[in-house]
């Protein structure tokens, strides 16, 4: 049986969700036999494999032009897209910059409170979008894993269900934000 291809992406977030993914303990061993982890901060592979993947987990909110590009690519190349953690689901902490004009934000961070001699970093990093958005505001999403980070048990439950070809049953406490 061919392995299920899974990608994980890391947008505007703290990597805590990925830490929680690694925190699913012995389930990791089970997963190792069943999945092929493709592009992911964990593998450090940067591009989607030829033919796309079965599942992509997206940690973090859509906050810059790179995220915008990648989230659309992820949608095209994934059968199932999962918003992975509160930043992806709600915008969470990164979303709090919404309401502050991007120019002012850049000026305050890189212009005033700076270690870069007031130089703006735009020639090397992607431009910020004018508003941070949850993933499902940009592309359709199949499942939402709540939590900051989502508890390891919820992650394991969702992935194992999908591997069994079932709908992840996310109910009650599984849907707790924060």
């Amino acid at each position, binding site marked *: 049986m061919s392995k299920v291809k899974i990608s994980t992406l890391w947008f505007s977030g703290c990597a805590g969700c990925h830490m929680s993914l690694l925190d699913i303990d012995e389930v990791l061993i089970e997963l190792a036999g069943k999945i092929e982890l493709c592009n992911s901060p964990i593998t450090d592979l940067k591009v989607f494999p030829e033919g796309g993947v079965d599942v992509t987990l997206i940690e973090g909110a859509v906050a810059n032009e790179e995220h915008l590009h990648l989230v659309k690519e992820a949608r095209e190349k994934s059968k199932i897209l999962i918003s992975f953690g509160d930043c992806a689901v709600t915008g969470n902490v990164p979303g709090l910059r919404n309401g502050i004009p991007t120019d002012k934000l850049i000026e305050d961070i890189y212009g005033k409170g700076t270690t870069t001699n007031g130089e703006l970093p735009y020639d090397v990093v992607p431009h910020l979008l004018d508003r941070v958005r*949850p993933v499902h505001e940009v592309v359709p999403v199949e499942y939402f894993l709540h939590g900051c980070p989502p508890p390891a048990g919820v992650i394991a439950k969702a992935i194992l269900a999908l591997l069994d070809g079932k709908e992840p049953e996310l109910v009650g*406490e599984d*849907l707790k934000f*924060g």
Partner: protein
Amino acid sequence: METITLTIDGRTITAAPGQSILEVAEANGIRIPTLCHLEGLSDVGACRLCIVEVAGQLVPSCTTQAVDGADIKTQTDTIKVHRRMILELLFAEGNHVCSFCASSGGCELQDLACELEMHSVTVPYSYPRNRIDATHPWFLIDRDRCVLCGRCVRTCAEVEGAHTWGFAERGSSARVITDLAADWGEAESCTSCGKCVEVCPTGAIVLKGASNAEMRKDSDLVARLTERRDHE
């Protein structure tokens, strides 16, 4: 004793007259989600989460009297759709970021998201930017986490009798204020009794110094106080 008989979700129930549908349901172990309702305070029907269906009409169960012969439904698909939309609207209105909220783990809004199975907020978030008022020596209010349920207003008026809290402005500018929109620390009518902290269902009104997920509230306080007062 005079009684009335009615049906809730197909169950035949006998109750005393004069009770609200919500009271009758709760007394019979039928769960109806609520937010602005709090035992011990008057009901205002503001949050609309407790809507139920009576004779094809959606009515708030907290402010609608149970009457003899009524056929009440509390969990139809239509009701569920509306409740979830209302909850989404509440989440979209404020900055209900649970990850760094003092009340996380003890928040009625957070619990409602689980209960009503709100997987995501489908309506656009508004990201308000209200100033946090931390001028009171012990308490603070973060209006971006306020759901305008009015429990603080009613508690302050009906239980403490201080009338410090009130509403100001209209529409999306509506907010709770202390005195005539003075900073809380300057509000002369405030007795600093702290009951508003206990009744606030979210992390809007909290104790200063409570860090992430440290705030736990005694939301039954008002019910206990009013009960004892009634026994005087």
